[in-house]
């Protein structure tokens, strides 16, 4: 769970309101938070191992007149990952600051579909009492970390095989021993077979990619 401390200095200004409006609002079930709140949350992932959320939501000022209030604003993030066609809870986090970023670790291979349920809660105290209002939003994120990687590796392995095949031909023509080169060719062919015939995760593709890179120095 990630918890940061609320900085109320800016928020108090944001939450400034006209008391008359608020009184009317409570009396007629007028949703203060709902009218003044613009949810805006950034969700992204750059490395496929973490999902980063940043709450840039706005709570608009109603009137320039301010009133002394105690307030607290919290955002709760709940992240689900789709596993076997079911949404599985993977992490909860509460953030008490609308500026800080929240970082979720989603494992070594984060590929998959995610559902992020955001719950925004504002508690404020007025001369009418203390009120808490909550809004929820659901966002969906599709992390496909290996787009194109498999195809790139297939191209790479194919090119390595072509290049090495040309060397084997040249060496063969001048009578050099090509035994090891032939074994390398065979191993490259095994990796190509693996890439073409198996379903590989991101980390598995990376492992094959590393192995192919080392062939340049073999």
């Amino acid at each position, binding site marked *: 769970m990630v918890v940061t401390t609320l900085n109320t200095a800016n928020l108090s200004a944001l939450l400034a309101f006209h008391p008359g409006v608020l009184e009317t609002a409570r009396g007629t079930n007028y949703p203060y938070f709902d009218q003044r709140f613009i949810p805006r949350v950034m969700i992204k992932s750059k490395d496929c191992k973490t999902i980063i959320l940043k709450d840039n939501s706005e709570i608009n000022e109603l009137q320039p007149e301010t009133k002394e209030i105690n307030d607290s604003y919290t955002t709760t993030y709940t992240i689900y990952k789709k596993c076997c066609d079911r949404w599985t809870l993977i992490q909860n986090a509460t953030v008490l600051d609308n500026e800080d970023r929240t970082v979720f670790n989603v494992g070594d291979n984060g590929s998959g579909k995610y559902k992020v349920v955001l719950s925004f809660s504002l508690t404020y105290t007025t001369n009418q009492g203390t009120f808490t209002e909550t809004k929820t939003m659901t966002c969906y994120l599709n992390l496909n970390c290996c787009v194109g990687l498999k195809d790139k590796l297939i191209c790479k392995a194919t090119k390595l095989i072509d290049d090495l095949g040309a060397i084997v031909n040249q060496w063969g023509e001048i009578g050099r021993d090509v035994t090891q080169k032939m074994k390398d060719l065979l*191993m490259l062919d*095994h*990796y190509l077979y*693996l890439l073409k015939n*198996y379903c590989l995760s991101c980390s598995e593709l990376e492992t094959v990619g*590393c*192995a*192919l890179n080392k*062939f340049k120095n*073999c």
Partner: protein
Amino acid sequence: MALELCPKLAIGSCCDQVEFCDATCIVNYASMFSCCDGYGVGDNIEVYEVNRTEFHWVFPDGTIFQNVDVDFVPSTPARNIFTVVSGTTGSIAVKVQGVTIGMALFTTTLLNMVVDLVTSINGQSSVTGWTADYDSNLQVTLYSTSTGNDQNNMAVDVWVGGNIQANQASLTTNSGRGTDSSCYTFTLQDLYESGPCPESYPKFPDGVYSITYILYGDDDEEITRRTVQFFFDCNVRNCFKNLLLKIAHECPCKDEDTALKVADIRNKMDAACIMFSEGDYEHANDTIQDAARMCNDFCIDC
């Protein structure tokens, strides 16, 4: 044509499940000509007549499991049957749960009216979820467009006007059963309920399986059966993948014989597949198990 059962088998990626599907052709009720050898064609039994099923399994090592009953029956859509009996003037309409799914006017003959009714129902099937067909006895059968029992017990009202008369055997839909697909996923527990599990538990061992699919009718008499062979190489394929990844991680190019030893396994895997496809089940069985043994015993020496 005689009923040709079409069992299909597929392997789960973790080698612990085998999905069986009865892919036997079933007459598409909105298009009678799309199936020539399946359920409901000509004198063939209807899929509704299958009361229960059994399976006989023969494992690659010869172990036999007979009369395995997992409560599987091919899925069917809910239906309702009525017959137009007589009439020379008037109209007919069919409602399911109070919603009109089709209607027709008597114009020239009862048969034409039934044809018009079925055409009307099938023309709206994408919206109503019901199709229909008819026979020369003016018997009309309504079918849900989806299989399973969710559409059972729905009220069916055959409304007639003028002097048209119709008989309705049941006032509700029935006989829908199963799920969306006619499939069942076997695990080893389905077979070893009363006996010891194999060494490979929970995974099915690699090799050639023989599976017999048997259908029984209402009187519990066998209707028909079909035996198919099934090639299972899931374990060795997973082993091969993990082996190559381990080699890639630990010794990408400095080995001496690794590439050749891996080629031996790969060749045996390919050969076993070819043998199976050519019907040489005994050698396919031996060869895939050789490949599995070589893969399991592989010693990486970079």
